[in-house]
């Protein structure tokens, strides 16, 4: 015997301190956190720096990234990239990857799905 149950989960939730960052993505820019102590710049932002400091400030990156490596296939194109001005690498979704591009520019994402997506480019 099988019973079919359907639950609809319609999340309408807030993201606190990270809201600023998510809003940035929907407007097409990359907001990072810069540590006030060691100046490390994290993107996505880390609330506590790896040096242990919790003092930081938001900075706006250029949105241009250098591609480190890309994985492609049935699950889509995703990459690890280094955004200009960031100290960390970032996992991104790639829009239309041909396999030859080495750079990318952050793309404005939808209001309802703020995500880190880049459009790959051949040149910086």
């Amino acid at each position, binding site marked *: 015997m099988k019973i079919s149950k359907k639950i609809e989960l319609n999340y309408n939730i807030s993201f606190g301190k990270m809201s600023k960052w998510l809003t940035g993505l929907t407007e097409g820019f990359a907001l990072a956190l810069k540590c006030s102590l060691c100046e490390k710049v994290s993107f996505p932002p*880390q609330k506590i720096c790896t040096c242990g400091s919790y003092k930081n400030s938001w900075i706006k990156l250029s949105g241009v990234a250098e591609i480190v490596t890309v*994985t492609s*296939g049935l699950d889509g194109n995703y990459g690890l990239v280094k955004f200009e001005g960031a100290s960390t690498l970032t996992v991104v979704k790639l829009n239309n990857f041909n396999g030859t591009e080495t750079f990318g520019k952050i793309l404005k994402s939808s209001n309802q799905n703020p995500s*880190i997506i880049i459009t790959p480019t051949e040149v910086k």
Partner: protein
Amino acid sequence: MVYVIGCHLTDFNRRKDGSSYRDWVYETFEASLAMSSLERKDIDTLIISTESDFFTFQLNPSTVIADDLGLHKVQIVRVEGGGASGQLAVHQGVKSILSKQSQHVAIIGFDPSASYLPSETVKQLYSNSFDSLTDGMNGVTATALYALSIQLFMKKTGLNETDLANATINNRNNALHNPSAHLKLKHNQQEIFASPVISSPYRRLHCSPLSDGAASLILTNKKPLNRISAPNIIGIGSANDMVNLGARDDVGEFVSKKEAMKKASSMAGIRANEIGFAEVYDAYAGAQFQAIKALGLSSDFLKDFRDGHFSLDGKLPINISGGLMGQGAPVGATGVGQTATCAMLLEGKYHKNLQIKNIPKFALADTHGGVGTLSAVSILKSNI
């Protein structure tokens, strides 16, 4: 001391018999209890491991399971740490005995593959098992994240796609002799190279399946006089790394595993090179190599693999069960099942064609959640 006096794994597969996870939990507990020679009323602690209530349609599952198993007035803990849940549950049991809070602990791990949910829903839920604000939003899959990590590892170590294919062939070959395994498949290299690319370099056949299943252990604090061969758990350790791959010091290395192993071997008082058998967390073909290196099981993992040292008749057999790739992976059951496999093997009670003749002194069960994000390992000692 902690003794393993009961251990069992149900079949790992996709159930088509109309059974429920509550049946599998019952089946595995009864089998472990029978092996332990304890009675139901002797169990004073129940530890449950399952990853997500989305898949079971049951919040707070530990209490309904206790009722199903006829366990009353016992301590109950549910442990969750993604893919590491089962091994963390083992740790919880060990800690409970060592702190003298418990004498007889039942540990049960389970999960349904939730094949009754739309596959897109399952994919979305698993995306949210990484950081739901970043990875969850851009929909990156576990396969893609593991792929990014293994790409950097391959660049650094020289591991190549033929090695990935051979590891897949080895593990599924072992699974052929494991009656409870999910993927009992005899592959050849061409078949693997022809399988569709999910996230380069990972192809469909390099992935472990999501399975239905349960596994259990019964631990006790005193040497069982009627079973002096019952093995011990002598070391446990866990550690984390950053969830966001890009924030890690080294994206290709499983640093958390190295730390977890350091803690476990220090507690056990042995070195990694004394381990004679290991069940490692091969969620993907390459993850097995990342694990072996991080755990320090070999000083040259690539040469040792290519020389056949990790195969069934090698000097350090790895994933005799078939691993996650062959035996399967019901998330919450995985770590419990890996430890149960080690315990059976150390007592000479493993499946006939897979039992190692010269039983090693020490075995290792290695589990993680995320892409090596939360690692948990246990070291067992034989008493044969």
